[in-house]
């Protein structure tokens, strides 16, 4: 009995108590990861794929690949102060495209999250709300975002309105559905325990529904920001005057292929970066979840 009730005597517990946290932990993990082959394999993998790309387009000049700009041509233009085809990291126009797209994503993602998360929470929690909204949501969800383009253009004036509407709509469905599933995944015994402990409905909402659904919500948000990006680009290709999607399709129209590839690569990196931010916010809000996963060795 005594050995159990006084754990401060045992060493492993003490070591666990002083384990690094926050930035120190991040640095520790970064340091130890270089002792494993993983980072070298990642770098090796990247170079391998770049080499294949170079081989296809510039090395062997295969038929039908010879019109596609290879990695050297793209890199040369991308990092040149005087780009041959107009776009490089030294031109203001490049950053303007990124800025416009990011601003649209920020607005669309905020709107979709602000509407989708509360809607999903209530849909998961209350059968009544679900009965009112679920059928219409399920009917609208399979409609491809491109099918909405004409309607969006008719409904909203200018360039910004339709583009933001389309990106919002696409990510709204993902966010709502995941949030709803998140609430439904919460074990019934947590609701019962909260009821036993004397919670009001509002207490249950705050202390069980919201935190319990959070892992699913953030999985949903990561998917939804990806969906927001590709519906945004699709929308910019059809209706837009700036942005990365516009850059890609405009370059294609004007027969300049290098900016097209630059736009695609940039899109990849910016999209990746935004998902990382969403993931980091999620992990920060769900310490309990991260720790539980870490103890399972993940």
């Amino acid at each position, binding site marked *: 009995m005594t050995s*159990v009730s006084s754990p401060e005597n045992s060493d492993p517990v003490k070591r666990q108590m002083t384990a690094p946290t926050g930035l120190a932990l991040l640095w520790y993990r970064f340091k130890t990861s270089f002792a494993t082959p993983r980072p070298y394999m990642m770098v090796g993998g990247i170079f391998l794929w770049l080499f294949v790309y170079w081989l296809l387009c510039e090395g062997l000049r295969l038929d039908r690949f010879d019109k596609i700009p290879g990695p050297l041509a793209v890199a040369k233009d991308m990092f040149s102060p005087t780009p041959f085809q107009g776009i490089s990291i030294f031109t203001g126009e490049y950053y303007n495209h990124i800025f416009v797209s990011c601003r649209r994503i920020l607005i669309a993602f905020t709107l979709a999250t602000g509407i989708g998360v509360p809607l999903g929470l209530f849909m998961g929690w209350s059968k009544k709300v679900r009965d009112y909204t679920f059928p219409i949501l399920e009917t609208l969800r399979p409609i491809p975002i491109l099918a909405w383009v004409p309607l969006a253009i008719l409904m909203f004036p200018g360039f910004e309105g339709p583009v933001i509407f389309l990106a919002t709509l696409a990510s709204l469905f993902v966010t709502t559905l995941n949030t709803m599933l998140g609430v439904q995944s919460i074990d019934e015994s947590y609701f019962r325990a909260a009821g*036993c402990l004397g919670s009001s409905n509002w*207490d249950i909402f705050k202390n069980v529904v919201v935190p319990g659904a959070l892992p699913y919500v953030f999985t949903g948000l990561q998917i939804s920001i990806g969906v927001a990006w590709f519906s945004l680009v699709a929308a910019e290709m059809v209706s837009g005057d700036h942005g990365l999607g516009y850059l890609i399709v405009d370059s294609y129209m004007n027969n300049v292929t290098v900016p097209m590839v630059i736009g695609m690569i940039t899109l990849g990196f910016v999209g990746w970066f935004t998902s990382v931010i969403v993931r980091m916010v999620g992990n920060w809000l769900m310490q309990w979840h991260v720790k539980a996963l870490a103890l399972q060795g993940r």
Partner: protein
Amino acid sequence: MNEFMSKTKVNGTAAPHAQINNGAPMGGALSIKHVSKIYDPEGVNVCAVDDCSMEIAAGEVCMIVGPSGCGKTTLLNAIAGFHSITSGEITLDGDLLCGPGKPKAAQGADRMVVFQNGALFPWKTLVENVAYGPIVQRRMSKPEALEKSYQMLAEAGLGDFGDKYPGEVSSGMARRAEIVRALINEPKVLLLDEPYRAMDALTKSIMHESLLETYDRTKVTIFFITHDLEEAIFLGDKVHVVTTRPCSLKKTIDVTIPRPRTYESLSSENFRHLMAEVNEAVHEEAVKAFQAGERELA
């Protein structure tokens, strides 16, 4: 001798409950009269509990033993207010919990449940879990509740683990914290639904000692569902053997082993004698249940 031992323990440890009840029962007499419960999940009536009556005195440890899926949990759910009953009545200290005209009991902090699979909120630390009840019931301010929670966790040997999430501690510790979370609300009855089911024998024995110690300190009425006959006799004042579905009382066995009990009681002649008696009553029902092959109802 029994009373003398428990009193010295109370004075020695300055338990929070000691000041309230001085080791004497503070109510919690449960009376279950002719309770029946009929489910119809698939359009066919299934009788889970049939005309079940039992009296549980205030401050008694009452163990319910019966085969899997026999309706023990249904009975507990009725007392806790998770489910309605079809007929009969249940009273607590003479007050009607559920009965004619009131099929479902209101959930309340006078009856605290400890769940089969554990229901500590994984998104709250142990101390936040314990403090949750008093805070939502507005019985204590947040700092007060947290202070009291640290104190009670320390008494249960969890002093160093208050700031850990449930996912970071062992299942035994989590279960003990869950009992602390129940006790901080000063319930009249503690309802435990096979709380140690998933634990290995060694952890189980530690949990038993800790529960007995808690009981000696608080003298709370305990309604404990189990399959484990040894556990039933070791912990209980009375062992109620119930029949296979539909559940009704088959036999009540008074456990005459004096308190406080230690693991030496397990090897006493008396214990073996009681074990044989309970075994005889349960075995017949277990065979019947096995042959019926019924699945458990929620």
